[in-house]
């Protein structure tokens, strides 16, 4: 009896007090916030949209303008760095006399063959290692060890084995692009949701169909990330290979220009690298837009 009375005494005072507070709160005047809404018919934009189209080049244009002004004012000496207008006229000249197109063609061929051989090999190794334990044991260790050997350091060996011809240069690019392709594709294969494998069991997919219908499409996003990295690596190795020993190509042109203090030619070649790198990136982006249009959020 005493106990229940004590309990009541504890509980009771709090209840009405709480009720009063709630009533006070509900009667208090509120400040309402008006949320931003769209005008009817106006296109809705969700989230942050990156700059698209030509507007992305505003920054580049500004930098070139400052560079030109600095050259005009004599802050930059022509033998150190040629002005943009000088570079343009040099470029036009080099195109007219065929030097630049020849060099570009030679370089493009090297990059093309390096990628054309290296990418499939990297992808095939990744599939082999990704799908079987034996494959992983045989391949993955080797790749992981080789990965930490600077490819540029292998140039001497390639020259020793293959001479100074095209084969050595293409081989180096080929080897270089294999790694990003392999690593990204392998990781993508290994991270495929196992429930798809179970689905394949349930619907009775055979080995080849499984590869074609599940493994390859699932690994495609990873492969394309690898491809983008591979493109960058290819251009990097190309410059290096061509500057060491070559009688054609953009790198060769740069070395020649260096000998004769032609900074304008060097800048033209560097600009070519930049544009080519940009173009390959746009190419892979386009590839992603088409091949990965099934992805949510695209």
């Amino acid at each position, binding site marked *: 009896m005493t106990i229940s009375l004590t309990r009541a005494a504890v509980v009771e005072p709090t209840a009405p007090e709480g009720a009063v507070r709630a009533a006070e709160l509900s009667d208090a005047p509120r400040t309402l916030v008006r949320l931003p809404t769209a005008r009817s018919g106006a296109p809705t934009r969700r989230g942050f949209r990156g700059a698209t189209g030509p507007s992305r080049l505003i920054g580049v244009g500004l930098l070139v303008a400052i560079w030109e002004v600095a050259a005009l004012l004599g802050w930059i000496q022509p033998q150190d760095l040629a002005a943009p207008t000088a570079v343009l006229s040099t470029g036009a000249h080099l195109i007219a006399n065929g030097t630049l197109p020849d060099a570009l063609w030679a370089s493009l061929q090297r990059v093309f063959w390096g990628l054309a051989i290296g990418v499939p090999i990297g992808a095939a190794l990744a599939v082999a290692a990704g799908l079987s334990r034996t494959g992983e044991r045989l391949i993955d260790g080797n790749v992981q060890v080789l990965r930490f050997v600077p490819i540029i350091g292998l140039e001497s060996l390639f020259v020793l084995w293959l001479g100074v011809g095209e084969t050595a240069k293409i081989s180096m690019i080929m080897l270089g692009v294999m790694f990003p392709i392999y690593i990204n594709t392998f990781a993508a294969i290994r991270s495929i949701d196992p*429930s*798809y494998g*179970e*689905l*394949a*069991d*349930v*619907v*009775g*997919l055979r080995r080849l*169909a499984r590869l074609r*219908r*599940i493994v390859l*499409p*699932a690994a*495609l996003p990873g492969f394309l990330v690898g491809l983008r990295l591979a493109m960058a690596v290819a251009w990097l190795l190309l410059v290096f290979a061509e500057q060491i020993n070559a009688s054609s190509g953009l790198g060769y042109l740069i070395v020649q220009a260096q000998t004769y203090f032609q900074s304008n030619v060097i800048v033209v070649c560097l600009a070519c690298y930049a544009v080519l790198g940009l173009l390959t990136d746009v190419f892979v982006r386009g590839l992603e837009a088409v091949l990965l*249009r*099934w*992805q*949510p959020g695209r």
Partner: protein
Amino acid sequence: MTTAVAPERATVGIPSDAAVVVRDLRRSFGHRDVLRGVDLTIRGRQFVALLGRSGSGKSTILRALAGLDPGAVGELYVPARRAVVYQDPRLLPWAKVLPNVTLGLEGRDAAGRGRTALEEVGLRGHEDDWPKTLSGGEAQRVALARALVREPELLLLDEPFGALDALTRIRMHALVVRLCQLHHPAVLLVTHDVDEAVLLADRVLVLTEGRVSLDLTIEIEGPRLRSDPAFGRLRSRLLAELGVDEAGEGARSAPDTPAAPDASDATDARTADDLAGPLQIHPPSEQEIPT
């Protein structure tokens, strides 16, 4: 892939009309015995619901019958053509709807059969859609089409309505019933929703501590209405077997689960529907919700 499945039916003692025969099925994960000797026979065309609490091993039985569990011990006899529908639709996101339905299907008319299956689930015209554009209910109907296009003799449903909203679930219930009448496979529906089991199944099994603890044949004539007293009695019986106090005060103290018994039982009960004729949603007064 398939566990202990005899190549033919010559084995002694298997009824000729059986679609599934399970004898002394056992499965342990580490030191935990999930299945401790399950015996089960499902006749052809029979719709069996398997109820159990979370972790009772109901999905383990389903996986074993699908041939997906190499660690299952015992005897399993299942038909060659089996199909599974999971709680998630599990569509390949990189394939359009039609190739998802015909995945693994062989033969020249695969695409035609796929189209027919899509039509049956009410998704004609969606053949070339990407899965990402489908709603949850549509995706699950594609998964159903993918299962039915194989003309399975055994259809395994692993909580296929679990992730759907209440209204979509009502439609799906009716769709599944209609399709089962059309294709008449034997069905094993794994669920923790008592009402769903009573509404859909010919027979309800309750799995408790690794064994079938209750095996009820449902004999409610005609349309199954929740307002039917027989429905209420059945459901009380099943809830009791599952360790739920129908007064709604929570769990009878169960040995392994001191907390509330799988809250979804209570919420799911709201959403199940009656299968009488055209679809209708009943006013709350007609529903007997144990809360």
